[in-house]
């Protein structure tokens, strides 16, 4: 109980999102936040939970991007914080989930 009270505060969700924005999908040349691949970020006393997806289940870089996302979160979380980055397929990603920045990048009009 004392240990929990003394535990460092979990990172802000916006800080976690900023960290995830450093993870770049190499094919798209765009980060996973702007691509709309991150569905959920929760940060609390129990740790950080991230739900993310890929543009397709046929994407072989999935495990690598999940690893990179986990490392990016670990950079901003106090040491020992439980970090759970989950690969989810519901809902299936679609292009409308991209941010305005990404849509501009790819030439949407």
């Amino acid at each position, binding site marked *: 109980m004392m240990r929990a009270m003394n535990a460092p505060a979990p990172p802000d969700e916006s800080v976690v999102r900023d960290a995830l924005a450093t993870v770049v999908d*190499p*094919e798209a040349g765009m980060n996973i936040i702007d691509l709309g691949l991150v569905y959920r970020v929760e940060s609390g006393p129990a740790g950080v939970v991230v739900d993310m997806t890929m543009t*397709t289940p*046929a994407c*072989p870089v999935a*495990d690598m991007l999940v690893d990179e996302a986990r490392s990016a979160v670990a950079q901003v979380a106090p040491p020992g914080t439980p*970090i759970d980055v989950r690969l989810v397929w519901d809902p299936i990603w679609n292009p409308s989930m991209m941010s305005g920045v990404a849509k501009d990048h790819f030439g949407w009009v």
Partner: protein
Amino acid sequence: MSGAPAPVVAVRWRVALLALGALALVTGVLAGLARLGVGVPDAAAGKAALHGPLMIGGFFGVVISLERAVALGRRWAYAAPLLAGLSTLATFVGSAHGPWLLVAASAVLFAATADVVRRQPALFTFTLLCGVACWLAGNLAWALGGVPHASTWWWLAFLVLTITGERLELSRFLPPSPAARRAFAAILAAFAVALALEANGTEAGVRVLGASLVALATWLGRQDVARRTVRGEGLTRYVAACLLSGYAWLGFAGAMLALGETAPGGAQRDAALHALALGFVFAMVFGHAPIIVPAVLRSPVPYRPLFYVPLALLHASLAVRVTADLAGAVPLARAGGLANALVLALFVVTMATSVLRARRG
């Protein structure tokens, strides 16, 4: 809890599967050189007739099905690269079961790709499935007929449709218009008709195939997100350069098939096939490797501007070979073919040294 979960098949087994693919690549390239009249070791010279199956089944079959197994994360899907790799070993022990092992490999990859379609029914996943169906058809034709050259177009269709499906997937970053999607479906249909005509022995089949490849190159050149990403920097720009330069060879190969004299054994056929297989397919490999190698082997391949050197030499050496083929200059075509092989070796060395540099930190 913050550690990464273990992959369903350990990286060392993936390396072993890739080693089988590499064996097929080396043997297949040497077998191809033997066909051009270059002196190569007997073990490879004796496989001159197997250049196509070694390159497409033994190498690309392993690489593509391994990539899909990693994506799916299902252990059974790894049977596809294993069976394709065993087909290469079968040729070394003089077994006649090589073609049937490829049939089995392609059947497993078909099931794995059908699982992808089930998870995400879409035009691009369907295109991937069509590609695998072509591989399966070509392997069956070889196993039943006994001669590999009858399967050439089916096998190349496997590569073309696999690459196209993956590019179509990425084109969703800038979604094609309904008209562009209809155009793509029409090209796919023309491609299927061409393959059916060719399999039926109709001479027009190869010409229709060529025309559909020209249309496909045009479509990809207009729709591919590489047109945007080529304005980026680093790895993203390099990948786009590989893709766009590959589309030029795809269009050239298509035009040659549509208009040229492409009877088996002819120099024009050699030019068209290798414009497609080296200029288009291997340019994609050059671009894709720095992305896929880290995903499959969990070893980073940091981008270096040096990556452009093998790419430029690939196109230059292919231009020499194709020009020599068309001019009937046999010694120069042989030198071009040898240069093609050396460029592939240079590419492998470039990737390997990049991996080692990254590991040393």
